[in-house]
């Protein structure tokens, strides 16, 4: 086919009907609801531990998870647009973690060294990691599915960011259940839990997100 003919063909439908970023957000919401229902079925009613922990730890947890989610989704969507600069968005992902780091320093300085283990591991360390990692799965599937509409020029990075977003979404859901109260715990448990789907996305990206 001659290039001029191809151009004439393509020019017949200039308007793009797809809205890839909306579709990603919609798909993530769908996957997140599935994860939330799964948590409801397994862990029962949400916010049950709020009476023991009080509002503040719940606020810190949710605030952290939501900020983490917003930053990683924004970076993930930007990674699907060719020519878009990523560095600022990638740096923003670190902000909620830096805030936790500051809180952790405060907690450590006001806790005797012998009790530091409790700050980091609480009483629900393993179940927290398992819950967030499992809850991120439906979000990861739906996000990667919707992401194929995008045009990632670095599919591995795009997959990683999609996975990180899924982990963050799962953290938002699990924050409704988490009975822990320290920022140190959030850093020690939520971080590896969110990294698991990120690694999965990083490995899957080059296969699933090529175009």
């Amino acid at each position: 086919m001659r290039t001029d003919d191809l151009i004439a063909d393509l020019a017949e439908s200039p308007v793009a009907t797809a809205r890839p970023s909306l579709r990603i957000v919609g798909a993530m919401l769908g996957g997140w609801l599935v994860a939330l229902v799964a948590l409801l079925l397994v862990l029962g009613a949400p916010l049950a531990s709020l009476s023991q922990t009080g509002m503040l730890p719940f606020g810190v947890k949710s605030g952290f998870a939501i900020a983490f989610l917003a930053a990683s989704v924004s970076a993930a969507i930007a990674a699907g647009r060719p020519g878009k600069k990523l560095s600022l968005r990638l740096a923003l992902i670190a902000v909620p973690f830096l805030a936790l780091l500051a809180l952790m320093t405060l907690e450590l300085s006001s806790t005797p060294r012998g009790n530091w283990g409790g700050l980091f591991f609480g009483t629900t360390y393993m179940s927290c990691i398992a819950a967030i990692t499992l809850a991120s799965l439906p979000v990861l599937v739906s996000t990667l599915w919707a992401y194929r509409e995008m045009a990632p020029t670095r599919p591995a990075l795009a997959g990683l960011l999609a996975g990180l977003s899924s982990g963050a979404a799962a953290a938002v859901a699990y924050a409704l259940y988490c009975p822990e109260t320290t920022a140190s715990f959030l850093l020690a448990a939520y971080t590896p839990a969110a990294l698991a789907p990120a690694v999965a996305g990083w490995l899957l990206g080059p296969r699933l997100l090529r175009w």
Partner: protein
Amino acid sequence: MKQYDKADLLEAKLHALMVAGMSGHSGAYRTLLSLSADRLRSYFGRRLAGRDFDVEDLVQETLIALHRKRATYEQSLPFTAWLHGIARYRLIDFLRRDKRAVEVPVEDGFDEDETDAFGAMLAQLDVEALLADLTPKQVAAIRLTRIEGYSVREAAAMTGQSEPAVKVNVHRGLGRLMARIKGGDDAD
């Protein structure tokens, strides 16, 4: 007053055309595609000097990619940066595929002697009668790559098979032919 250089002017023009195109102006979109094709031709031409067919293939592939992924463009993004991102991705993809095509003889599994012996035998036999024994896909793959001298890529494009499929068909087909010529019996 700020001095605009040529690149700024071109960007302003392409950006305006893209915005008009995305809001339904077919003529603007067509002009944009033509101008993009020129840009792409020189972009790929500089990197694949002398390979005019590959360059034109890549230009077309990139135009199709641009069209399919046009929803990922947003107006705040410089059009040239977006186009360059797509072109670079297509070029990397092409070079990766191209590398595989160059490696075909190594992966094919026949060593030098075997191939020569096969050629000598082939010359003495009725090629058409032999080929009649193979599946149509194997016949097409062997005929195009080994008799008519097309590359694996070209053969893949002509037959609609994937490149690995062409290689496999050539490999299996030749293996079967060798077995028949040597032993007279079917072997798979």
